[in-house]
């Protein structure tokens, strides 16, 4: 299965992936209309250390601990993609408590949202990778996840 991978040596720390993610999942066709002057809630975030930066989003684990721990039965796996049913999620954040990558964060209403690889939105493939100016984020096949 194709997944999102990052190369921290190439990440510029520009945060464009966060904006592209928020826009791709906004359901709107105009980026300015979707994002301008608003706090954004992307499903990917850039981690910044002293000399490094890289983007973190859901790893779509083979054996996803978030799915096993979800108290609402809202997280599930569809064709290898970990998805959240926002209609079932109550925002308990147990998934945030267990994700070893720190990849999950709720939306502005406190309900979980997550990277679903842009397969269901207008982008059709991960907007973070498509828009990364330095190829630090790629969407490709690299064997099984952990």
């Amino acid at each position, binding site marked *: 299965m194709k*997944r999102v*991978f*990052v*190369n*921290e040596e190439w990440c510029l720390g520009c945060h464009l992936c966060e904006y592209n993610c928020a826009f791709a999942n906004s359901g709107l066709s105009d980026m300015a209309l979707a994002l301008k002057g608003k706090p954004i809630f992307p499903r990917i975030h850039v*981690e*910044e*250390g*002293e000399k*490094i930066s*890289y983007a*973190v989003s859901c*790893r779509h684990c083979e054996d996803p*601990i978030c799915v*096993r*721990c979800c*108290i*609402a*039965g809202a997280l599930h796996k569809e064709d290898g993609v970990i998805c959240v049913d926002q*209609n*079932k999620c*109550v*925002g*308990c*954040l*147990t*998934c*945030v*408590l*267990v*994700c*070893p*990558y*720190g990849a*999950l*964060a709720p939306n502005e209403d*406190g309900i979980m949202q997550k990277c679903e690889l842009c397969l269901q939105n207008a982008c059709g493939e991960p907007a973070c990778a498509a828009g990364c100016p330095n190829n630090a984020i790629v969407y490709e096949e*690299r*064997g099984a*996840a*952990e």
Partner: protein
Amino acid sequence: MKKYIIIGNGVAAAGCIEGIRSVDRTGEITVISEENHPVYCRPLISYYLEGKTDPQRMLYRSPDFYEKNGCQVLYGERAVRLCKESKQVELADGSLHPYDALCIAAGSTPFVPPFAGLETVSRKYSFMTLDNALALEKGITPESRVLIVGAGLIGLKCAEGICGRVASVTVCDLAGRVLSSILDDECAALMQRHLEQKGMEFALGDSAARFEDGRAYMQSGRIIDFDVLVLAVGVRPNISLIKEAGGDTGRGIVIDSCMRTSLPDIYAAGDCAEGMDASSGQQRVLAIWPNAYMQGYTAGQNMAGSHAAFDKAIPMNSIGFFGLHAMTAGSYEGDMYEEKTETSIKRLFTKDDLLKGFILIGCKERAGIYTSMIREKTPVSSVNFELLKKTASTTAFSPDIRRKKFGGVV
């Protein structure tokens, strides 16, 4: 064809079904369910009263879950005896059901202390099951003054769930603080202040000496008048089937890391079981949803002939009240690192080069990075802990580990 029986129909049972089916697609699975509901999300009953979900959305799995997994569910039935020699389960109706492998996922039962006069209270409820929640919903009105006995996870979630639908909520507990099983004094005080700001009242370090209908006479001399009483003192693991069959029990049914009980071909999982707490190294009941699922899944795999172990069970909770979240995990032992503001507390506990536990209130971001360090027993010396203790960030890990985590390079 193998015959499997699962006693109980909660999340541990669901995990067990999925565990069996990950190995054996064809064996016969029979589920004995006291409750007349397909597996639902029990911790969501307070969210239901709050109006954030409904019984349909609370279903844990799709409506065709049992059919898809080839399970027969005996609703409204209760197992009363195990015949371990003939490998049969006897139900309350006297019928006998043979098994090749059995899983006890029978959960727990609310414990009601013998309060004097309790029998005179006409409107009293437990808060464990969906039926309890539906009954409580019928029992309250916007004018109700509610007294909840028990300021633990169940009692306080109940309080949050109903407080917008009743006139007042008072919570009493013999313990001197709220959430005494997961918070220390100072953290509990922060949460209590928050709950009081939302209108809840507390009578802590106090217990009912006796009840009359509509009135509690407390040990302290205080009198609390109420219309509705909720009993959320605690629960007791359902261990009698194993105990009477001669199996090892402590507070719960004793299991090993493969979820085996001391009796052959009998496994146990979930709130009725007592397994190893990987954070403290002690055997204990870890009555939390994630462990119930994982124990059930592991039991199921092994019932079907696999050799799976689950040895990473730790206590952990993520629980929010009116927007303030408390996340806790592991054991609070060793050296403490602390950060505090008016509205948040972070406490991390380290010992023997390991992160042993934490309490995070009002600072939840990426908490799973800490939790995984406890579960995986990651040496503190292998990460940049100076950085990590301030911010939960994978940048504190070595470049090799980061590349493995995010670059897919193994």
